């Protein structure tokens, strides 16, 4: 068995060589995400002002040295609010998607391995769930549960796992027909061991790549709900809430809405570039 294993040193050498050939999208996306994470973890290190402190002497002031992104209608510093919003919006990206990733992967693996009636039934559930406009269903659930981030996570979680489940189920269904799965069965491994130790590592790639896209979508969704007043609640700094704060001042004080929007676009780009690069990387590895 040890015969086919490359030596540790050879593996390390290969890893170093690969680093130079990383896709550009992967590097740029990774850089944006790393910066976003730092801003999300320690916004107070970078925000020049308290994001919710009002200054009635500096209401609606345009971008200046004192306030690079200007101030809003309460005199709050827009830059500080954009920076501290990283905490909430990155949290949305991670919290809203990680649960569905885990649940969907487990369910998808079991469904894909079981096949037959289970797979057909799951297919019907998927059909029905994708028949709902995602945002409409999330809004409807939030409407019943009440506005707020916690309820938004629940609403997203109830639906979103289906998408991961579909990806993983399809991939596991392919993998289980390959020889190595038969070998596992022949060696008397339990189905659980075959599924989670052998099939899943080979089948999870599409789900991981989708996870990146999904996090970008989660930020769009979270900020949309914030904009509609159904997500993060004021005075918390969240990009969607900020854009809503500035929507009546677009002609006179554009900076209130425009800068948070740019933050959304940049972060979203970070996720999708990183996802594209990751997909390319995993593809070439295969």
């Amino acid at each position, binding site marked *: 068995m040890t015969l086919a294993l490359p030596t540790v040193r050879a593996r390390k050498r290969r890893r170093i060589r690969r680093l130079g050939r990383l896709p550009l999208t992967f590097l740029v996306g990774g850089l944006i995400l790393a910066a976003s994470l730092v801003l999300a973890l320690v916004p107070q290190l970078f925000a020049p002002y308290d994001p919710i402190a009002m200054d009635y002497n500096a209401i609606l002031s345009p971008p200046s040295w004192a306030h690079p992104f200007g101030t809003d209608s309460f005199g709050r510093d827009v830059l500080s609010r954009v920076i501290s919003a990283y905490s909430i919006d990155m949290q949305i990206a991670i919290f809203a998607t990680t649960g569905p990733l885990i649940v969907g992967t487990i369910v998808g693996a079991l469904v894909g391995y079981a096949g037959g009636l289970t797979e057909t039934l799951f297919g019907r559930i998927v059909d029905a769930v994708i028949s709902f406009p995602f*945002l*409409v269903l999330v809004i409807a659930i939030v409407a019943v549960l009440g506005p707020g981030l916690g309820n938004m996570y629940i609403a997203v979680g109830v639906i979103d796992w289906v998408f991961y489940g579909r990806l993983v189920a399809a991939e596991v269904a392919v993998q289980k027909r390959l020889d190595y799965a038969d070998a596992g069965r022949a060696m008397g491994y339990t189905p659980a061991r075959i599924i989670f130790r052998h099939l899943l590592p080979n089948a999870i790639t599409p789900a991981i790549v989708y996870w990146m896209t999904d996090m*970008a979508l989660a930020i769009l969704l979270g900020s949309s709900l914030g904009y509609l007043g159904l997500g993060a609640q004021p005075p918390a700094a969240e990009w969607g809430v900020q854009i809503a704060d500035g929507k009546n001042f677009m002609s006179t004080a554009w900076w209130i809405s425009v800068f948070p*929007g740019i933050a959304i676009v940049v972060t979203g780009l970070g996720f999708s570039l990183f996802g594209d690069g990751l997909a390319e990387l995993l593809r070439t590895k295969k």
Partner: protein
Amino acid sequence: MALLSFITRRLLQLIPTLAFILVVIFLLVHLLPGDPASAILGDRARDADVARINAQLGLDKPLPVQFLIFVKNIAAGDFGDSIHLKVSVASLVADRLPVTLMLTAMAALIALVLAVPLAFVAATHRGRFSDNAIRGSFQVGLSMPVFYVGLILLTVFGAQLRWFPVGGFGDTFGEQLYHLFLPALTLALSLSAILMRNLRAAIIGVVDAEYVDFARAKGLRSRLIMTRHVLRNALISTVNLFGLQVGTLLGGAVITETVFAIPGAGRLMIESIYGRDYPVVQGLTLALAVVVSLTFLLTDIVQAWLDPRVAR
């Protein structure tokens, strides 16, 4: 003939999907935590009022009975009455949904008009400047939230340049088209980005196909080769994707209608949520889900028509 039996089969598949949609809509209000009656009336509601609302919503009966009544009512076209607007949900939906459908149809059309030619340019100039420029700008478009795009277009082309109205909906069809142009463009942007990306990849996959070489070897004009041989094959997967994106489009319409103050189903949905008008939320969710299911059916038929191998 094959197409006809395919459509029949596909219609039969619609039944379990619709049944499941009904269950989800029902559970939405009846199973999720939270008591609709007190949610509607607020925390200081008197017990008598709660009981009255519960009776009005049929919430005092056992769950399976409630579901049967729910299904029976829907089959009879009765979606209940709006709590605040005092009219039937069915008439509200019938009144507002066409506006949303018109908006999304316009958006879909604009998205196609943008995506198809640009995908062609990008695919045929692969790796060159125009390809990268097109892909880059669409990637940015894809990362922009709908409400943000809408707000910017509204400010620039509505409030500042005054080329378009800043909201509302006209009376004549022409006026309506004019009013819906900016919102439809807003909605079209991310869809066109998704379609462009997919179609570009599909075209690249097809232009090197041997049947395209064979078409060239036949001495056909390049325009005929591009439309009949390349585009038709490339569109097959894009049509499928288009169907899957209609849900996203309708979700986007909810936001767009709010931003542009368009009296459609989406804006009604948000207003009903603010007003905790559950029968309306329920009715609208059902209506939108049915619209999506029917679009899936339609795109499947188009796909089967484009690709004879599907309808075997």
